[in-house]
Every structure is written in structure tokens, then in C-alpha cells.
């Protein structure tokens, strides 16, 4: 379908983008890669009066080394994330999850920032950034990942706030990592996904981080599993036992891809697999 009509502006600085959003009031919407927004406009599920295209805002581009962390610009495309040497070295889990996002054409345009600001609990990157305790850097403040995802397709960004980038700590650089995504067809959203980081010292687990995709209206941490594996043996048996509590405290949706109970079951199986793969056992 043809989208409803709207005005289009393409600011060339962050200040201009913020003032364009302010001028638009509640009727403005940022467009980045458009890979989530344009389908919504075509299906007439969204009716913004003004689109503010942030593609030419220089502050949103590039991946910067900040010493103990990386700042990944919001406009970094999935394609660029997969080829970025800093991300590969310091945040390989981000690249692993990104390689499962959509298809090559969508990855050429879709952006890191857009897929986080979209706050789709079925998106692959929110669980990763949550597991890594990333920090969302916006035009006006910094928001810890644990406070960024508010509800289904809802972040805590204000209507006049632009996501500039996400700060990812390098602390997990040496940890084992794995993104376990379960889906039925070649190119599809996760029915459930598990983002996992494991710090192994010898045969033991010194620490673990686990983020779950599509197990609620926001991404969630599997805190009970993280606690259960800490200090324990790095073997499959121990991981299976610990992963039994993966669905604790979650409220996964029921839809045509699977019931809520099915997703709870999947979360335990996939979490065990993700831990084993991340720990290399």
C-alpha cells in the first residue's frame, strides 16, 4: 500500500534534528534505515505527519573506541556492524546476533540504533545490549539498558529525544559468547532467542550474562540462571540444571508461532545450549 502523506526533513546536525522533532510535537517520527518504520507506514499502522531522517546527522555515525568501552553510533547499519573490527574484537556477541537479523538487503539499510529504539521484544539486539549492560546515549542524557525498554515497541525515549549511540563496555571482550536463535524458516524473527556471555576460569564459571529475546513485552535477563551457574562447573550437565529456571519471572506471548508454555520450554532448552556453546563445552 501507499503510505499516508507526511512531510520529510533531513537535518544535518543533532541540534537541527532535535529542533525538528520539537517543532513536530507529537506528530514527528525519526526515520533511520526505515526497515521497521516503512512497513508500518505502508500497512497504515502509523501516521506521522513529519519524518525526520537522521541519516545525515554526523554525530550518529561510526564506531568509536572510548578506552574502556565502545560507542556504537545509532546509524551504524547491521551490515557495517558485521564488518567493524572494533565490534569484532570487543563485542563479538553483537556481531553474532546481528548476523541472524533479517536478510542481506534489510541489513544494508537497517541500523543498530533503529532496531533498539524500535524496542521490539522479538528483535535480536535488545537482549544483547541488556545482557552487556549497555548505556543508551541520547541527545539529552544517558539511559542504562535496564531502564531503556519500557514495553512492547516502547522505549523510554522522549518524543523529542534522538538516540545518538550505545556505549558497550569492553569488560566482556575475553568472555565466551553465543546467540542462540530459534526460528522456523530461513529468514524469520526469533520465536525465542538467548544472548549469552560466559567467563570461564578453568573448569569453572566465574560469571555469566544471559538476555532473552521474545520472552515478554521487553527483553529480559535470566538472572536466576546467571546466579545458578556462577562458581559452578562449566559442563553441560550443570548448564542444563541451571537453565531449568530460565523462564522464571518471564511472561512470554502466545501467538501463531507458539504458545506461552512452548516458549517457556524453549527458553530452558535454548539457554542450556547457549551456555554450552558460549563456554565451549
Amino acid at each position: 500500500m501507499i503510505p499516508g502523506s507526511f512531510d520529510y526533513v533531513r537535518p544535518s546536525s543533532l541540534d537541527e534534528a532535535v529542533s525538528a522533532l520539537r517543532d513536530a510535537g507529537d506528530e514527528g517520527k525519526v526515520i533511520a534505515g526505515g526497515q521497521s518504520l516503512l512497513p508500518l507506514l505502508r500497512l497504515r499502522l502509523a501516521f506521522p505527519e513529519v519524518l525526520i531522517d537522521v541519516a545525515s546527522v554526523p554525530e550518529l555515525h561510526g564506531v568509536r573506541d572510548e578506552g574502556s568501552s565502545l560507542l556504537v553510533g545509532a546509524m551504524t547499519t547491521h551490515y557495517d556492524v558485521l564488518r567493524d573490527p572494533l565490534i569484532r574484537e570487543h563485542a563479538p556477541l553483537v556481531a553474532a546476533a546481528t548476523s541472524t537479523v533479517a536478510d542481506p538487503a534489510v541489513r544494508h539499510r537497517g541500523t543498530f540504533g533503529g532496531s533498539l529504539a524500535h524496542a521490539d521484544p522479538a528483535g535480536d539486539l535488545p537482549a544483547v545490549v541488556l545482557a552487556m549492560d549497555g548505556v543508551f546515549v541520547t541527545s539529552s542524557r544517558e539511559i542504562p539498558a535496564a531502564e531503556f525498554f519500557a514495553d512492547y515497541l516502547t522505549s523510554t525515549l522522549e518524543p523529542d529525544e534522538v538516540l545518538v549511540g550505545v556505549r558497550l563496555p569492553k569488560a566482556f571482550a575475553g568472555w565466551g559468547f553465543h546467540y542462540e536463535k530459534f526460528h522456523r524458516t530461513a529468514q524469520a524473527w526469533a520465536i525465542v532467542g538467548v544472548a549469552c556471555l560466559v567467563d570461564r576460569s578453568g573448569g569453572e564459571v566465574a560469571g555469566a550474562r544471559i538476555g532473552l529475546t521474545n520472552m515478554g513485552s521487553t527483553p529480559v535477563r535470566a538472572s536466576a540462571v546467571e546466579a545458578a551457574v556462577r562458581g559452578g562447573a562449566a559442563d553441560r550437565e550443570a548448564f542444563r540444571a541451571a537453565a531449568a529456571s530460565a523462564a522464571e519471572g518471564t511472561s512470554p506471548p502466545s501467538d501463531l508461532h507458539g504458545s506461552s508454555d512452548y516458549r517457556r520450554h524453549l527458553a530452558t532448552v535454548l539457554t542450556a545450549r547457549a551456555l554450552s556453546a558460549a563456554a565451549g563445552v
Partner: protein
Amino acid sequence: MPRVSIEVDGVKYDDDVEPRLLLAHYLRDRLGKVGTPIGCDTSNCGACTVLLDGMSVKSCSVLAVQADGQDVTTIEGLGDGQGLHPLQRAFHQEHALQCGYCTPGMIMAALDLLRENPDPSDEEVREGLEGNLCRCTGYQNIVRAVRRAAGDLSPKPAQQEATR
């Protein structure tokens, strides 16, 4: 109305467009480049795939205003009007189409794949084309065609020998 300047298949066009005009509609309805079909409303099928500054995109999911200042290559820009492009020829030879609706998108996505990976395995072809749906062929012959075209596009050992 914003004015855009877009090069399509080697020809520069300057046009006033409504911001909501999709690149796919610009190509088809304004420029008459109906070689690029539209198959869905959800950005899933890939029928509308073109190259934007050399990289595959789904033209139904790009606004014409977003393509301002960029180069577009459609299926119509591949052959020279006389001979077929090696990918077009391989699709013909391997019987990689039935109704043909997905074919322009398949070929443009395959072109992008071969740019990145000139000699893909079957598995790599399938991954490269995962954003393109075909309701007819079952994909087997499409994979075969892309691999055949890869062979046709890369210089043969004998040719390399000859140019040494």
C-alpha cells in the same frame, strides 16, 4: 515537494516527488521501469530488490527522497539490450524460473552476493538469497543458476594462464 536527483541504470533523473513515494513506485510509475515488480506490503518477499549505490535493497522499503543523490541499478540495467547478463543467461539455462515474478529480485540479490563472494557454496547462495521468496521453483535451480553464473563471471584458470 522535495526535488530528487537519482541516477537509474546509467541515466540521471531530476524529479519533484512526494515524500511518501516509495522508490519502487518511483521506478515503476514515474520512470516506467516496470522490470522491478512489487510482491508484498511487509518487506518480506524481495521481488522489488534493486542495487542502491551498489548494495541490494528492497525498493519498496526505501523512500525516493532517501535515495536522493544515489545510483540505482535495476534488472533493466543489466543486459545491454542485445545479449543477456551472465546471471540472466544462467537463470535461463538452469530453468531457474517458472512464473518469473521473483526473478528480477533474485537476480539483483544474487548480483550483490557475487560482489561480496565471487564463488559461493550452495549454502552461501541460500543465505545470500534468504530475503527473496519464490513460490514456484523450490529454489534448487535458482541455487544452481547462481553458481553457474559465478563460474561464468570469474576468469577461468585457462584465461588467467593466457593473460600471464
